[in-house]
């Protein structure tokens, strides 16, 4: 599976999907759950710093009114004390503002990253507990995007937008109250300008988001095209199709450019428009203020009725300017807030997914026989395994030796309700038998193995493991009893040795090398630059597909599980090398119950039972000789008269 690493889109708008109701509330709750003390401190500091800022803005006016104006006529000495008083008062207020700002920014850094850590941890833990179905039904890029885009958006939201928003709202409230304390009439004008602001934000913002959606769509179109064409670039080259490809590309590129221009245009003009509404409001306030004063209209404020003086108008103007600047700050945050909420909505969505349930209670243990020949549990690896079965009814524990008898009885299954992909499957694998599944893609071979280790649960019928219904076995223990080798190898970042040891974490180096030899991987590993210590990146992109398969066989070998599932384990190994691997595989399979899915029939002809599948049904069964004599589908497949895929 060729997967493109999800690109990191720092700062890019991701506008897909809607914000679920209650997301904001839930996010706040989540924040407070772990950091309520820190957050209370932050809010307190924000209030102090907002108040300090607002008080500071009136400082100059006070200085002018109380010191400078009288000072001009009476001389410096008469107002000296007053001046020092005011300055010292201001130093105190400013210091308070700075200290509280240091406290809240430092605290917020911890809160933001701590919360993100909690989110990541919760998401990952959740993800590891989700049933396979989730991964099969969700695009991997989409899952990744919650870790990258959505978490990044959340970082911006918690770290910047939220404190900004709180402090802006605080300032606005404080300023608003102060405005009312100066003049009601003038405050009404400010309110009117806010209404205009809101209308404009709605209009321009609405257009902006409308075209943003369009832009996202044409971006997706172009990215889709680029993805398809670049992935097929070699074909383009072979067919000299470059000019055609350029033409198609140009068309999409033009469209994207057009939509992007329109969308950004609306986004870009919002700020100057809002800013200048602020300026116009300023002028209006001055006009009306002076007119009111001229006609000696009674001013109404908290302080009661009085005439409007130029001093009041001037102070009011300063506040109005601050007010419109704060509104501008809030409007700058809106897109970040929307992105942050959309991101957390998707994160919560992941956290709300239903986990894989596991009601099993039978567990797999190492066992040995005591003097009386009875099975007892042990910590050592004895090669003898037992199912530890606790019976609730009479509070006893019994041990049953793992033999590897797996029976499917009349199993029906569908991935989607009402659409069966397996019909009436019955298989009886006796201990140590090799069972091969053969059939076209989509015939249901892999689905059967998915049911045996309970990646999915059957709809009808029964699956028994050594006579125990698999539903009773704890999933992890059931799965640990199978060594799995899959067609998509999936190695992990780490050394070759780490990757082999993944099969059994406490395996020694020697055991890992032994397993690699068994899988015939030792040879190529030794030729790698650092042998077993070579680092593998990007799913082992520095190895060939065949080499990766050898490693995953070694990984299964070191697990030394009592049973095995091999799903197209050797599909990418050429026939000659496959013969070499085959010897190792035979050793590996000896004495174990094995389910094999293989494309190449030469690798399964010695199976004890071969099941030929077609459209979810078993249409032929028997060993190689029986099936060849039957001259049915298997015979035609084997002799190459029938196309497999």
């Amino acid at each position, binding site marked *: 599976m060729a997967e493109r690493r999800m690109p990191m889109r720092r700062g890019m708008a991701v506008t897909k999907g809607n914000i679920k109701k209650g997301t904001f509330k839930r996010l706040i709750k989540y924040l407070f759950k772990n950091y309520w003390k820190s957050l209370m401190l932050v809010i307190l500091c924000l209030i102090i710093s907002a108040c300090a800022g607002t008080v500071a803005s009136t400082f100059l006016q006070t200085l002018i009114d109380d010191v400078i104006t009288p000072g001009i006529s009476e001389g410096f000495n008469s107002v000296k004390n007053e001046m020092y008083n005011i300055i010292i008062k201001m130093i105190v207020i400013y210091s308070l503002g700075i200290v509280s700002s240091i406290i809240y920014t430092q605290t*917020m850094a911890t809160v933001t990253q701590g919360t993100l850590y909690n989110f990541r941890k919760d998401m990952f833990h959740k993800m590891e507990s989700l049933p396979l179905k989730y991964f099969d039904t969700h695009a991997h890029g989409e899952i990744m995007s919650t870790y990258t885009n959505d978490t990044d958006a959340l970082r911006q939201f918690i770290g910047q937008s939220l404190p900004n928003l709180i402090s802006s709202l605080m300032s606005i409230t404080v300023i608003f109250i102060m405005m009312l304390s100066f003049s009601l009439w003038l405050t009404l004008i400010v309110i009117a300008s806010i209404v205009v602001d809101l209308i404009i934000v709605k209009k321009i913002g609405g257009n902006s988001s409308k075209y943003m959606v369009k832009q996202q769509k044409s971006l997706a179109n172009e990215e889709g095209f680029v993805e398809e064409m670049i992935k097929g670039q*070699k074909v383009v080259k072979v067919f000299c199709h470059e000019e055609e490809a350029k033409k198609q590309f140009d068309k999409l590129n033009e469209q994207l450019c057009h939509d992007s*221009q329109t969308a950004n245009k609306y986004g870009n003009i919002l700020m100057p428009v809002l800013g200048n509404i602020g300026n116009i409001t300023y002028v209006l306030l001055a006009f009306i203020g002076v007119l009111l004063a001229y006609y000696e209209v009674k001013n109404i404020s908290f302080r009661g009725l009085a005439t409007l003086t130029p001093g009041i108008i001037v102070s009011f103007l300063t506040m109005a300017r601050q007010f419109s600047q704060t509104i501008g700050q809030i409007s700058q945050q809106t897109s970040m807030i929307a992105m942050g909420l959309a991101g957390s909505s998707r994160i919560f969505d992941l956290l709300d997914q239903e986990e894989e349930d596991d009601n099993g209670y039978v567990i797999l243990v190492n066992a040995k026989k005591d003097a009386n020949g009875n099975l007892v549990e042990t910590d050592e690896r004895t090669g003898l395994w037992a199912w530890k079965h606790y019976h609730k009814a009479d509070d006893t524990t019994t041990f049953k030796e793992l033999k590897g008898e797996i029976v499917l009885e009349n199993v029906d299954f569908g991935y989607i309700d009402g659409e069966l992909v397996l019909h009436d499957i019955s298989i009886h694998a006796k201990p140590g038998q090799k069972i091969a599944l053969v059939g076209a893609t989509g015939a249901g071979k892999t689905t059967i193995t998915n049911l045996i280790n309970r990646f999915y649960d059957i709809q009808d019928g029964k699956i028994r493991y050594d006579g125990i219904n698999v539903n009773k076995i704890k999933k992890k223990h059931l799965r640990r009893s199978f060594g799995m080798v899959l067609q998509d190898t999936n190695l992990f970042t780490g050394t070759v040795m780490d990757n082999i040891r993944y099969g059994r974490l406490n395996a020694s180096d020697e055991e890992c090398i032994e397993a690699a030899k068994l899988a015939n991987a030792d040879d190529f590993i030794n030729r790698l630059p650092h042998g077993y210590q070579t680092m593998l990146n990007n799913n082992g992109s520095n190895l060939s597909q065949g080499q990766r398969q050898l490693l995953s066989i070694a990984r299964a070998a070191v697990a030394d599980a009592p049973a095995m599932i091999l799903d197209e384990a050797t599909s990418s190994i050429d026939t000659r090398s*496959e013969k070499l691997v085959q010897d190792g595989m035979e050793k590996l399979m000896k004495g174990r119950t094995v389910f094999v899915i293989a494309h190449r029939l030469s690798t399964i002809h010695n199976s004890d039972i071969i099941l030929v599948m077609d459209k979810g049904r078993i249409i032929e069964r028997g060993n190689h000789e029986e099936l060849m004599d039957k001259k049915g589908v298997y015979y035609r497949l084997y002799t190459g008269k029938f196309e*497999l895929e």
Partner: protein
Amino acid sequence: MIKTLLKSVREYKKTSILTAVFTALEVVVECIIPFIMALLIDKMDSSNLNVVFWYGGILLFLAFLSLFFGVMAGRCAAKSSAGYAKNLRHDLYYQIQEYAFEDIDKFSQSSLVTRLTTDVSNVQMAYQMCTRIVIRVPLMIIFSFIMSFSINFKLSLIFLISLPVIAMVILLIIKVVSPLFSKIFKKYDALNNYVQENVSGIRVVKSFARENYEKEKFDKAANEVKSNFIKAEKLVALNSPIMMFCIYLTILLISFIGGKFIINTQGLEMTTGKLSSLINYGVQILSSLMMLSMIFVMISMAGTSAKRISEVLEHNPVLTSPENGIQEVKNGNITFKNVYFKYTNEAQKYALENINLEIKEGEIVGIIGATGSSKSTLVQLIPRLHDVSEGEVLVGDINVKDYNLQSLRDQVAMVLQKNVLFSGTIKENLRWGDKNASDEEIVRVCKLAQADEFISKFSDGYDTYIEQGGVNVSGGQKQRLCIARSLLKKPKILILDDSTSAVDTKTDALIRKALKEEIPNTTKIIIAQRISSIKDADKIIVLDNGKVDGIGNHSELLKNNKIYQEVYESQTKNTSKKGGN
């Protein structure tokens, strides 16, 4: 790097410059507005309405002017940055079209896709910022300085006190915070990469019941990211208190000294209104300076993307078509003379060593060998998808390097191993081979490739829509369509690189028979895993580790070539020893 990137501005140069001009004008007006506001406040007198109306009128005019400039700047910025991104994508895409196989492999296809999409978006944002904010901020600083110096020179010098502090903050960000962040983002990328591995390898995780192990590993990595992030963000968070400190300090100093100055000069040298606008300019200068430091951080983030883009633009394709290259491939002869090939100059081992081959027009040649024996590499030298490191490859008795590249590739058709169909109808896909091909011709080649039968069974026939990646046709069907597509080129040489692996042996034989009978003069080279696919070839080449291990027909090789014998045995043993288990 920057020079390379700027080349793509082209027709948006004018709008880009206009953006800067309008932004500059907007800044000028924005700087004048508080000045007029101060005048208005100074002259505020309820007894003389005219003065207020006069200054108010100017202010209104300026506000509309500022609105106009602001809107124009915004529009131009949108136009130029989106246009620039368009050109950048265009240049990247066109450059990639010139790339040879080696170049594509060097960057990897998925990395090229990321560069064309995400990286371009990042650079687009940075470009928009550059044309607006990068112009705006320094201009703001300069104009504010000019205005404040014009108000009172001596007092304005107080602003300079804060400069060293702010310079230190900027330096700190460049020297400490930026590298810290790039280190963190690397760790962060690794963390996300780790999640990615878990998502795609979830089957492995679950089958080995390693959920808890993975959780522990993840928690450790996430915790490391967290503590690093906190460290860096705490440093960055000092930014705003420091800025507050500088602003407050300046305000206090100016108010104190300025106030004293006004009083002592009895308001003759300076008015209180001027004092307040001086403070406003001071705040503006300091906050602009702080913004400058933030811009550094943001640009350095886009810098990585910019580097990745310019890498593509600056990378010269390893092979280019010669000027006035030969247009016509005379015949289907192929000759390899002492050919050596390695993928990079640094590579220690040759992928192909000392290859000498002589293939005559119309011959059928089979190639067999283990994975990694360089079979595909060998045939890719024929349509010059790679250039040899030493020796020469002749097609139609002329060195491939002397041909016009397109002509050569049109006449040497190649069906790739990893083949791709594109979203579109079957007909559209086939016409890649010849865009003017008639319907009859398409049917004819499909019959040759044994594809007509299954295509006719589709309800839409040749107009059946192929989904992206060709997921709605089977592997065998896809391979036959790809062969038909190549046949439409009417090539002199046809190369099938493991192109019938998913086709059943009977159909495979029918294809080979049709090719032999219907296009006898075309040289056919067949790479195959199955002996049955190449058994009847005139000549079979056995490759081992980049060297020719043996050449001959089936019966000769069976006698004298060990590898061939082994392969043959591994594929036939079971049928011949039927029941011998």
